[in-house]
């Protein structure tokens, strides 16, 4: 591989330090109505997130449609401006940066999109698409843009000679590789991927997941992955946050989360995943949640999951459970968590 190793920086000295810190992040989309179009309410898409993503880790956010995970991704990349809260990237407050101030930030923070078909300009050849970040940012890579683009194409497993071909000449998986090559152009530190493989066929999905893994090693990348496929998330993630109706209900190391989920919603979510193994069909207990996710315009008070939770009691309707670290590294927002280790179980859950 021809890509030069990134310059060592001060940050590299502390490998586990946080790359991006999110503090009390809120995004409400106003709803207007009436003759004067006054604001009558708000879609509470994201409502108070606290988390930090460590350098070189893969941090995933999972949840069902409408939970706010894609909004979160757009807030992190500042494609949306937060209603409240604070986002710190590499020690710098980026919450309310203006467009001109955001531009240098885009070098360090890139996004991979779900749909490889619509995110590439069909009238531009691949070379121009992948080289666009250089031109936009006014960067001249050593050896020229063409050389840099061909290196990038090789890095994502495409033939560098396909420099002059157009997106329609590639398959879905190859197009996703082109998109990935483009995000890598400026050697970002953080890549935010919104459903990076959900539009792809199973066999292609595995190729892309393997590629993302290789690139993380090679380019020292930190990933924030937004996904709904729990199998994919387990495979790629170091840590996972589960969102429900705009809030994180559980945040833990992937293995801990999958082997001993503590929030009832996570438990239900895990039990619903179909596993490609007929032997497991009989011996597993499935928790079927009733009904639909409530509207984020009028979310249930206190614990937002209480309307569908089989463990809900009075306190769940009146008092919001904080996201508390019940086991080391395992944060849960629930009054009655599952799978508590025995010693922790004796202490009353807040």
């Amino acid at each position, binding site marked *: 591989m021809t890509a030069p190793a990134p310059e060592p920086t001060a940050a590299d000295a502390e490998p586990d330090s946080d790359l991006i810190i999110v503090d009390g992040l809120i995004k409400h989309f106003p709803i207007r109505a009436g003759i004067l179009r006054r604001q009558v309410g708000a879609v509470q898409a994201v409502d108070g997130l606290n988390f930090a993503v460590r350098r070189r880790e893969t941090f995933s956010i999972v949840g069902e449609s409408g939970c706010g995970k894609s909004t979160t991704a757009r807030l992190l990349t500042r494609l949306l401006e937060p209603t409240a809260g604070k986002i710190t990237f590499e020690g710098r407050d980026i919450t309310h940066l203006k467009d001109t101030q955001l531009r240098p930030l885009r070098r360090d923070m890139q996004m991979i999109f779900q749909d490889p078909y619509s995110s590439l300009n069909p009238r531009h050849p691949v070379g121009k698409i992948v080289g666009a970040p250089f031109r936009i940012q006014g960067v001249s890579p050593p050896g020229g843009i063409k050389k840099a683009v061909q290196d990038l194409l090789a890095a994502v497993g495409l033939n560098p000679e396909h420099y002059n071909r157009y997106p329609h000449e590639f398959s879905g998986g190859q197009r996703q590789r082109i998109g990935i090559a483009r995000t890598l152009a400026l050697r970002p530190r953080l890549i935010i991927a919104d459903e990076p493989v959900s539009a792809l*066929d*199973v066999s292609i999905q595995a190729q892309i997941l393997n590629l993302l893994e290789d690139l993380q090693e090679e380019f020292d990348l930190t990933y924030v992955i937004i996904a709904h496929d729990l199998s994919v998330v387990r495979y790629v993630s170091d840590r996972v946050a589960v969102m429900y109706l705009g809030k994180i209900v559980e945040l833990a190391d992937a293995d801990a989360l999958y082997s001993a989920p503590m929030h009832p919603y996570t438990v*239900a979510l895990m039990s619903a995943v179909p596993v490609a193994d007929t032997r497991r069909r009989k011996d597993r207990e*499935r928790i079927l*949640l009733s009904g639909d*996710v409530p509207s984020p315009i009028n979310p249930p008070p206190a614990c937002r999951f209480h309307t569908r939770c089989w463990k809900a009691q009075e306190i769940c309707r009146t008092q919001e459970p904080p996201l508390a670290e019940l086991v080391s590294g395992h944060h849960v927002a629930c009054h009655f968590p599952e799978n508590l280790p025995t010693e922790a179980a004796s202490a009353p859950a807040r």
Partner: protein
Amino acid sequence: MTTSALRDLVTRHPGQPDKEPFLEVVDLRVHFPTDDGLVKSVDGLSFALDRGRTLGIVGESGSGKSVTSLAIMGLHTRPASEQKRPGAQLSGEIYLEGDELLGKTPEYVRGLRGKRMAMIFQDPLSAMNPYYTVGHQIIEAYRIHNPVNKKVARQHAIDMLGRVGIPEPSRRVDAYPHQFSGGMRQRAMIAMALSCDPELLIADEPTTALDVTVQAQILDLIRDLQSEFNSAVVLITHDLGVVAELADDVLVMYAGRAVEYGSADLLFNRPAHPYTWGLLGSIPRFDRTQTERLLAIQGTPPSLINVPPGCPFHPRCDYATRNEGRSEEVRPELTPVEPGHTVACHLSQTDREEIWQQEIVPKL
């Protein structure tokens, strides 16, 4: 292979060899003439299905699984009806309780649609007409085949909505599709499909557009309704997990052909085709930590205009070289590897078992 031999092979397949299967597809071919050449979407497919059983058809996009379902339903446009866009060229035989459908008039097959065989589509938002209420669309489906007045049909629609688990059906019957959530829409779609008690239900990616908890609800619903109506279900999906949940038999399709066909237990526990291995290896394990890399299939699916000769999978197959060139030249037919399990592959039994045990199992 002759048609009768094919029939023997498929009817021999899952269980009772003497009884005529409820649905039988023999050597089905669906080709579409295009400016670039003949697209062979389905090219010699055979299977059989009994009432009360579920057949899962698995494949990636372009494998021909949806084209197959539309062929059974008689929903392909035939060449004569449209001049500019020549429709599908169909050949082979499709038997519904011994009644061959491909040779029948469109009007005859239309009479069966919705009544004896019904279909659920992937995206219930686009598959329901946005201009009419959910109730209206169910009532319409019911009244096509049942000469009842609107009031009776409406009551039936409300009953059906209740049966598929839609709360307050008598109020919801007057709602429009866009007023439903994704899961509710799919329930309504199922209610519509089942309104005339069809004996054959084809579900084309019924849960792909849905969230995982809703998917679990819908799969449960299909399972319950099947046992209640004792219908035959063809479940078309790309998701092996969904198939493992629901299917009794599984047919794996690649480039318009069946590459592996057998009972779900055998196919998931002792898969025999390298493509099936690749599919299983491509899905990350949900139920345990996986440190090994995913066993991805190299390359991309072939063009259906220029399907590779011999075994269509051979350019992507890691083991094709073991077959002394036959994979590149001879098209493999479905042959039994054990009772109730057939595979279209040139690998010898010993090679297959060795690869499976030593190379595939440790990586899954």
